[in-house]
């Protein structure tokens, strides 16, 4: 049997950081303060570290606020790849596979899992490089479909509901002032014209009061 792989996410760095916010006022973002050891579902630990490093250069932790690592983006990506999305449950995958024109959309045979396995090989070891070298490595693959996927998934992992593994402690939502799911804005819809309205975010689980089944946990 395959040895269980874990990833340790250290996220103590961001608690209390001042970030640049939408209303251009200093704003304190809270985050989990203990490192978390997360069992991996798809990546090996080395792969996870490399993908995490790439995601953190796309959305870095900087003076504008926390980034991909603090939000646990790689955990999100790992679960997506392990689940139905990763094996192309949401695509028509019957052949023949032919090259098309861009307006016909992606026609490849490779699943997201395969694109990642192949792509991570090309940036293997990136986690150990200094930031400038990491950027140089990513520059070389900037136009590949792998990079496009990593960028898309980084945004998704930053701003998804925390039940999907990313956006830990709703750190991404705090960064953009998004409240997450909410039952009503009836009073607020027309009473904040021109002013930021930034209620404290809540996750779907907090709103419904029980766990909700995520697509990555389906067959």
């Amino acid at each position, binding site marked *: 049997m395959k040895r269980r792989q874990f990833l340790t996410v250290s996220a103590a760095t961001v608690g209390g950081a001042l970030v640049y916010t939408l209303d251009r006022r200093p704003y304190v973002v809270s985050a989990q303060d203990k490192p978390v050891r997360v069992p991996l579902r798809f990546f090996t630990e080395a792969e996870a570290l490399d993908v995490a490093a790439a995601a953190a250069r796309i959305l870095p932790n900087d003076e504008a606020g926390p980034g991909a690592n603090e939000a646990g983006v790689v955990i999100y990506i790992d679960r997506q790849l392990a689940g139905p999305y990763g094996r192309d449950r949401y695509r028509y995958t019957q052949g023949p596979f032919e090259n098309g024109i861009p307006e016909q959309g992606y026609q490849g045979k490779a699943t997201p899992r395969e694109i990642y396995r192949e792509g991570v090989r090309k940036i293997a070891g990136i986690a150990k490089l200094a930031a400038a070298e990491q950027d140089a490595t990513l520059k070389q693959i900037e136009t590949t479909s792998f990079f496009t996927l990593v960028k898309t998934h980084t945004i998704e992992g930053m701003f998804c509901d925390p039940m999907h593994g990313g956006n830990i402690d709703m750190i991404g939502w705090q960064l953009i002032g998004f409240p997450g799911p909410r039952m009503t*804005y*009836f009073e607020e819809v*027309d009473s*904040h014209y021109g002013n930021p309205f930034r209620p404290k975010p809540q996750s779907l689980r907090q709103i*419904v009061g029980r766990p909700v089944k995520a*697509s990555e946990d389906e067959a």
Partner: protein
Amino acid sequence: MKTLPAVDAVIVGGGWTGLLMAQQLASRTSMSVVVLERGAPRKTSDYLDNMDELDYAIRLRMMQDISKETVTFRHSERDRALPVRQYGSFLPGAGVGGAGEHWSGISYRYVPDSFDLLTKTKEKYGAKRLPEDHAIQDWGVSYAALEPHYTRTERLMGISGKAGNLNGKLIEGGNIYEGPRSEEYPTPPMKMPYLAALFRDATKSLGYHPYPLPAATTSQPYTNPDGVSRAGCSYCGYCERYGCMIGAKSQPTNTLMPLLAKRKNFTLRPGCWVKRVTVEDGQARAVTYIDAAGEEVFQPAGIVFLASWTLNNTRLLMLSKVADPHKNLGRNLTHQISIPAATVFMEKPLNRFIGAGSAGIAMNDFDADVFDHSNVPFLRGGHIYTVCYGFRPMANFGVMPPSQKAAWGSAWKKAALDAYDRTGRISFYGEHLSYKGNVMDLDPVYKDAQGDPLLRLTLDWRDNERNMAKFMAEKATGIARAMGAREVTPFPGLKSYDATRYQSTHIQGGAIMGASPESSVVNSYLQHWHANNLFVIGSSAFPQNPSGNPTLTAMALTYRAADAIVERYVKRPGSLV
């Protein structure tokens, strides 16, 4: 194969049109009515759990399972069609309520002259102005004949809005370019989020005529004439692509199912995938389907209705080899033009997570033929609007103003954060004319999960659409400036049809209606010309695509057909025209 006892009526598809037909037949007659829906059952209480962008707006949990069936697509008959492998330009619904569960609810009537488009355009501009390979034709029904059914539909759904033409009297603040309506909207307009208010004020200052979008996301609690009550909208923003968790958005499950559930002569069979209609000697006899357990079932019926949406209706007629002596089946494929005419970057935050599928403002000063087309390089037009349906962070983070070039890294992140809640869209919905080259047929190569050929779409834009889009993007850019946008990205232009860019799920044609069997598949009662007990309902019947969204018109046509069936056909079966 299992054969079931015959029923009076079988309806294929449990979306807006199928369930409306079922409700009319089951409550106004004693007929036994069976609805076969290939998706799962649904109800309002399911929808609290769906306030999740990833699973619903990106993984598209409520849509037809694309791994089992899709369409193939090419630009012209010279090209090779390939499957649309992941959803892009449209999103077919599946499950009880169909796409009506996760629609936006923008509820337009079509303007009167769109029903006689060929006649009116020739009269005014001469046949020479019609595009070379056009396939434009009149509908065989007039706005006046549909008006009472539009009113019924608005009352059924509790549409919120403001009349602009009440029995011929023009009313400031409503859409003064609409056709005359016999009644005011049943509920007052929606409240306006900030971006929509900015758009309203800017268009007014430019001398245009803005009005609140007609909305099925009802603005206040409402009880319809059938006695069905629904809550008012709370602007939660989980609306387009989601079902409404409080039942404020009118959906088949909260508007029609409460009535149907009480009818003993009505049966809903979810999980049933219809494969064929049997037509013999000019009469539909039965449908064949695979049931939820995977068994093949033969269901004989007195009347068969196809209500499985544009593409499925067309495909089922083709797979079933229903008579088509004049080669009308599959033609006049259209897809409403839908573009982000201008993306605006504002100075102040917009709180764009607040909104509803149809909370917004539109202006029709460039719609249809309300302005003179003698000196513009296109016919017809559409509406310029802004809708605040609830800004989704994953879909919108990283939309950059033109001055920002970074694509990732710190500079990108900073600019994206700055732009995030200041970004808005001025959109355009436009008329799509029909052309001889834009058609559907069965794909010779690719198959669905049952082994049946996929539907093949041959579809591309012509200069009429390209020139119209360019004109509207310029107008929208002017509005953006008047709104005080600090930067604007105008729509770069329509080139060739792009199956990867979401447009709208407003695809029409394939089994078009008309005045004669030589030029259409169904008559104005949606009755098949060559099998009078086969009705093909929904926007597959539209000969071309007027600028507005289709559902209200599809519903009005369904009501009109239901009246004719209940009042005439059941007493004396035969052609209704």
